[in-house]
């Protein structure tokens, strides 16, 4: 155990997660920055924690059961139809729109087999107001671009610096951590979730069969 004058291992360990969040004040950050190179134990904790975050934040960790999208689309289509009957301005359009929903659903299903997503990340958070000339870093095999020095750059030896504009043109998406200021700030607030009890029409056998597969 190495005891730095300013900060000891116990304190470092307690603050290490806040450190990665950028939630420690400048004095503590600087003390920790000095502590890590001198303390193998604490730097091993830091590396491990970064590794954990990098692995679990990977979109491959989010899998859905087979047929999930199909069942969801079907459920939505059914309920959109049910709601349509209650909206008087809409009811005249019910039949053609319902047909369109089914048609579009079929098309989308067919398209989904061939169409490649435009971005490297399927559930990317689009950024806003990123200065096009800002220099950013990408690495091979990754899907995101980072500000230089971001803690979450993987595969650092393959780093490549380019402009944000170019990175986005190549389909890279902004890092959710170092580029957070360019993502929409979420202020979802309190949601009043009064859902009309939509008539349950979800008893069809198709659905059951799909689940059984």
């Amino acid at each position, binding site marked *: 155990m190495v005891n730095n004058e300013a900060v000891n291992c116990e304190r470092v*360990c*307690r603050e290490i*997660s*806040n450190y990665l*969040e950028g939630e420690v004040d400048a004095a503590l950050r600087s003390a920790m920055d000095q502590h890590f190179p001198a303390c*193998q134990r604490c*730097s*091993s*904790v830091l*590396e*491990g924690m970064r*590794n*954990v975050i990098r*692995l*679990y*934040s*990977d979109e*491959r*960790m*989010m899998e*859905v059961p087979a047929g*999930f*999208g199909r069942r*969801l*689309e079907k*459920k*939505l*289509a059914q309920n*959109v139809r049910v*709601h349509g009957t209650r909206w008087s*301005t*809409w009811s005249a359009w019910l039949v053609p*729109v319902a047909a369109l*929903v089914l048609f*579009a*659903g079929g098309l*989308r299903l067919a398209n989904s087999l061939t169409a490649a997503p*435009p*971005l490297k990340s399927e*559930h*990317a958070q*689009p*950024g*806003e107001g990123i200065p096009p000339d800002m220099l950013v870093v990408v690495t091979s095999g990754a899907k995101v671009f980072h500000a230089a020095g971001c803690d979450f750059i*993987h595969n650092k030896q393959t780093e490549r610096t380019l402009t944000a*504009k170019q990175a*986005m*043109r190549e*389909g890279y998406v902004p890092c959710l951590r170092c580029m*957070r200021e360019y993502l*929409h*700030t*979420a*202020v979802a*607030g309190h*949601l*009043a*979730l009064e*859902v*009309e009890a939509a008539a349950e029409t979800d008893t069809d056998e198709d659905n059951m069969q799909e689940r059984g597969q």
Partner: protein
Amino acid sequence: MAEANILLHNPEQASTMREQDLIARVQRGRNELFYELVRPYERRVYAAALAILRNETDAEDAAQEAMLKAFVNIRQFRAEARFSTWLIQITINEALMRRRRERTVVMEGIDDRRDEESDYVPRDFADWREIPSESLERKEVRQKLADALATLDRKYREVFVLRDMEQLNIQETAEALGISVASVKTRLLRARLMLRDLLAAGWEQGWFSRLPFEKGNKPW
């Protein structure tokens, strides 16, 4: 389609504009476009529900219901919020509500107050052995990681999933779970430390030690 022509030279911006455009259209009554709007987030919605309900069927039901609620409430969505976060928060509300409804006798969470005070001492290693992201290509590695996460107590797991997997910020995580920011930070620290130790134990058991084959090479 008109929306396909927007700013093709900049996929990033095009994607934002396309989402805003889709939201506006659905808000004006183009209901049939709703699935297109939420499709990019279906995995995140499902993962959020699964983190809370821990059962695939329940999670899928909750995810579907949450999407329906988002549809019904789409006019309440304001452009200053991130759509994905709004959707995830609806999902969490739905999943928490289901858990409360289904669990008349509380089995978990009795000790919710206790161990936040006590310190967790991470295991001592000389060095951290980096687990490469490429190993996530292997189903069994993903499964091991999911299993490790599942062993955490609910209060740690939920905070970790919302912050580190769903990418909500600390404040949003606190609001979504109805706990304080300080609790989120404490639980997050604990969750990350425990997962680090579990993964290190996984190294010892050989979860990550071999990659099936390098990119581009055939395994045969």
